[in-house]
């Protein structure tokens, strides 16, 4: 479903990714772990198409389409979702309006009918409820005044509303207390565990993986994948640290 081959990328002319190769088949959830500065977030941003993240070599395709040739909004319409490590605040725009515009833009480009205001509010309430988030919060400006945990929960509500085919979740577990972690884990399983879907969880810690069992775990170090294994690899990393495992 997601195929990355020998991907090199620079940020401000500094090489960050140095030949990442990764294959995530449909129906699987993979985890990428690694120390700070190993290139995890850069990989997420490159996949989503953030300006300033230059691919200098290699390829990335999504369901056979050249991901790197697509604009960020085209990637979203194709079914790719990025859960941000630091969700962005947008004063003056309510979450409801922001998400309705987003979803309808995706639907337009796929040739699907637009959702009316009423239909959208029903969908948003339902998804907020499933994530244990007060739907009233969606009337507030995007992420403004939200705590770290609320922002991450809101990212999952967005994912539930968008129903992407593939999610790249960049440290969605950071800043969460135990209850929020459980809710987010359950949300990932509910929304992304399906035969035609896939996900890449980027995380520092084992703890999210206690709730979302990955099919494969990869270790990223200095911009390359240095080890891959089953779920037991995450537990090994947790007990031994990255220095050992990546050696």
């Amino acid at each position: 479903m997601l195929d990355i081959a020998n991907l090199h990328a620079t940020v401000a002319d500094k090489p960050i990714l140095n030949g990442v190769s990764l294959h995530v088949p449909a129906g699987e959830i993979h985890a990428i772990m690694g120390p700070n500065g190993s290139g995890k977030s850069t990989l997420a941003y490159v996949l989503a198409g953030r300006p300033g993240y230059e691919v200098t070599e290699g390829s990335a395709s999504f369901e056979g389409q050249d991901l790197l040739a697509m604009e960020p909004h085209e990637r979203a319409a194709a079914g790719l979702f990025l859960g941000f490590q630091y969700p962005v605040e947008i004063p003056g725009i309510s979450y409801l309006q922001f998400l309705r515009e987003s979803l309808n833009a995706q639907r337009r480009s796929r040739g699907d009918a637009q959702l009316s205001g009423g239909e959208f509010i029903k969908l948003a309430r339902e998804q907020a409820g499933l994530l244990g988030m007060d739907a009233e919060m969606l009337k507030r400006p995007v992420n403004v005044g939200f705590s770290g945990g609320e922002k991450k929960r809101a990212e999952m509500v967005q994912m539930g509303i968008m129903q992407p085919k593939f999610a790249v979740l960049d440290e969605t577990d950071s800043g969460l207390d135990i209850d929020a972690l459980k809710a987010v884990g359950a949300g990932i399983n509910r929304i992304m565990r399906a035969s035609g879907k896939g996900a890449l969880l980027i995380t520092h810690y084992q703890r999210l993986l206690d709730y979302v069992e990955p099919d494969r775990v990869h270790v990223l170090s200095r911009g390359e994948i240095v080890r891959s294994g089953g779920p037991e690899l995450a537990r090994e990393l947790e007990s031994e640290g990255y220095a050992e495992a990546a050696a």
Partner: protein
Amino acid sequence: MTAPFPSHKQEEWRYADLDALKPVWEQFAEPLTVTVGAGEELEEIWLPVAGEVQLRRVQLALGSGAKARIFALNNAPVYGRIELEVSLGEGAEFELFGANIGAGLSTNEIVATVKHLGAGGRSRQVIRSVLGGKGVGSYLGRIEVAHGAQKTDAEQSVKAMLLDRGATANCKPELEIFADDVKCAHGATVGELDPMQLFYAESRGMDPATARAVLLEGFVMGLWDSASHPDAICDAAREALRRLV
């Protein structure tokens, strides 16, 4: 008798498009006078009207304890000018929420003189400009606090967003204070859209034009939050912004 035609040497006409103004000057030469009596309230919404040149000149007198709230959208295709001269009696309150939205070669300006004549008056002016192409958007705001107008509380908040390199924002707050116990705050910023907000919106599926329009809406729409019937001005502002991106 027609008032003399203004010149750029007059501070309050410094950024005006006088060539555009000349042919229509006679119909606008005299400002409209509006009086709000003691303890009375006025709320007005000023929408753009038809025509390439749109001029609104108003003298507004607020009696003791009177309140006036103006919501204004300035969006003329060639030259738009909203000119207000407000006098506040004791304890009067005046609020102006105004937007300049302009593109092409247009000039849109809000020129306000607020005179605090009595004690305990409050004035608040919030101006947002969104300018594209070679559009010019200006705010000239003069606050005069008369001798004896103690406890005056005056605020000016002016922010402009420039979408293209050729666009210009002018902002000139001016204070003339003859009382010693007053509060006069003003702030002004000129900026561009935040690249991270744009990427966030695009990553959720908005094409770049929609993302820009939505972010600009957020920048402007907060102005109309306290209007009793904001629908018409919201719709007009939204339409003006969509034309711009």
